[in-house]
């Protein structure tokens, strides 16, 4: 599959959607009665969180494919998906923290089960790269990373249930969730922002896939032209490498 095709169109679509979503969020959506301007961060924070979690699960699905077919392509897909979700995840924690400071006065509150669950998931996935890096054998690295990705992907919903249960009776949820109780004028910017964030994720994913594939191709071409000795072997890295032919 060629990941580099139509990347320009995809990038433009992402840019347009994100700009439109932010414009709507700032100028069209009504001010929140309680929180005022600070509530605007919701249009970034929530879509980012959902997309990051979906990315983790998608990494798990690709990992299942990798274990079934042993095709390194799926390992690369899973790696890039998790890698990008980790970056978005850091963004989710930072924006969530800012929102918590603005609305509750503290940078971190343990009463918000979704944010706490997200932190646990983030901490778990943060071991993905160190684990890959410390396994030298390429084939083994890919296989073990896939096992980890499947386990962690299944852990995500389980963890959300457990954290929610831990607080269900002591702290009722203060905030309406995105689907219930959101006024119509807030819904449109939210869904548009969600679409924009999804497009952003897909675009970044395809950029990284294209880059990784191109480097692999370049290496094998160099090897064919100049001989095996001319190309230095790939150093130890956490990233999967496609087989060079």
């Amino acid at each position, binding site marked *: 599959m060629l990941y580099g095709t139509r990347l320009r169109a995809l990038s433009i679509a992402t840019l347009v959607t994100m700009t439109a979503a932010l414009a709507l969020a700032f100028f069209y959506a009504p001010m929140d009665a309680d929180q005022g301007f600070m509530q605007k961060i919701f249009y970034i924070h929530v879509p980012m969180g959902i997309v990051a979690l979906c990315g983790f699960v998608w990494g798990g699905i690709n990992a299942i494919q990798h*274990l079934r077919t042993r095709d390194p392509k799926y390992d690369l897909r899973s790696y890039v998906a998790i890698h990008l979700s980790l970056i978005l995840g850091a963004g989710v924690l930072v924006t969530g923290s800012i929102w918590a400071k603005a609305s509750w006065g503290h940078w971190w509150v343990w009463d918000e089960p979704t944010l706490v669950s997200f932190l*646990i*998931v983030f*901490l*778990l996935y*943060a*071991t993905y790269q*160190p*684990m890959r890096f*410390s*396994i*030298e054998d390429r084939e*083994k690295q890919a*296989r*073990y990373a*896939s*096992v*980890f990705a*499947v*386990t*962690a992907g*299944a*852990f995500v919903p*389980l*963890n959300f*249930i*457990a*954290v929610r*249960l*831990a607080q269900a009776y002591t702290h009722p949820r203060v905030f309406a969730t995105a689907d219930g109780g959101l006024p119509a004028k807030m819904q449109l910017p939210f869904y548009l922002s969600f679409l924009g964030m999804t497009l952003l994720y897909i675009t970044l994913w395809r950029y990284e896939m294209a880059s990784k594939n191109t480097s692999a191709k370049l290496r094998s071409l160099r090897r064919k032209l100049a001989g095996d000795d001319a190309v230095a072997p790939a150093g130890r890295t956490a990233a999967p490498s496609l087989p060079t032919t």
Partner: protein
Amino acid sequence: MSARATEPASSESDEALPEPRYVPLRTAVRALLRKELALELRAPQAVPAMALFSVTTLVVFHFALQRGVVDGDLASGVLWVTLLFAAMLGISRLFVADHEEGGLDGFLLAPTDRTALLVAKAVGLFAFLVALEVVAVPAFALLLLGPSPSLAAYGQLAVLLVLADAGIALVGTLVGAIAVQTRTRDLIVPLMALPLLIPVVIAAARGTSPLVLQGGSQGLEVRWLFVLGLYDLVFGLLAYALFDFLIED
């Protein structure tokens, strides 16, 4: 699961080796478990380290919290942090001997299901954890616990411990099998296992705190047993599905 290495020798030659017999799962598990326990009995390594570590951690808690006695939430937290961290030691040792002495290669040559190793390792780790708790829980009650819970409360604690141990044993076997192949084994184990075990900590700590209240223990909430049971079930199935991929070479 199909048997590996049971390809019949070519039928043309009369002097073909006898076809290897498939070892049933139960026999294989029994043999592996016996090996595991015999190793630990002859050269005790994991269990004494875990037990000693747990007692030391209790002493550290005494000084760090600056308290002579604890009860309720705090007692429950101290107990579970101690047990969980002690369990990390056992998990990082779990596959080391097999990896270094070639036990895994030997097992792979045996005509049996690879799930046998998962079951034997998980049951072995479970036994180590029970042995750890036989030391750590009385030490905790003696050194730090303020109230003296009734026998019934200890019974309920035992149920919680068994369910939590099952979860720790399953996750520990998976993580231990991954970590033994990495160069930084002792770093990967806690980093990976602790987040995975957070749901166990939530359910176990919440379930334990009403048992160790100052004013006499209240009953155990069944909800937490369900959470632990669900966790054990999910990770049991995951480990069953994924373990084969971890011991391929």
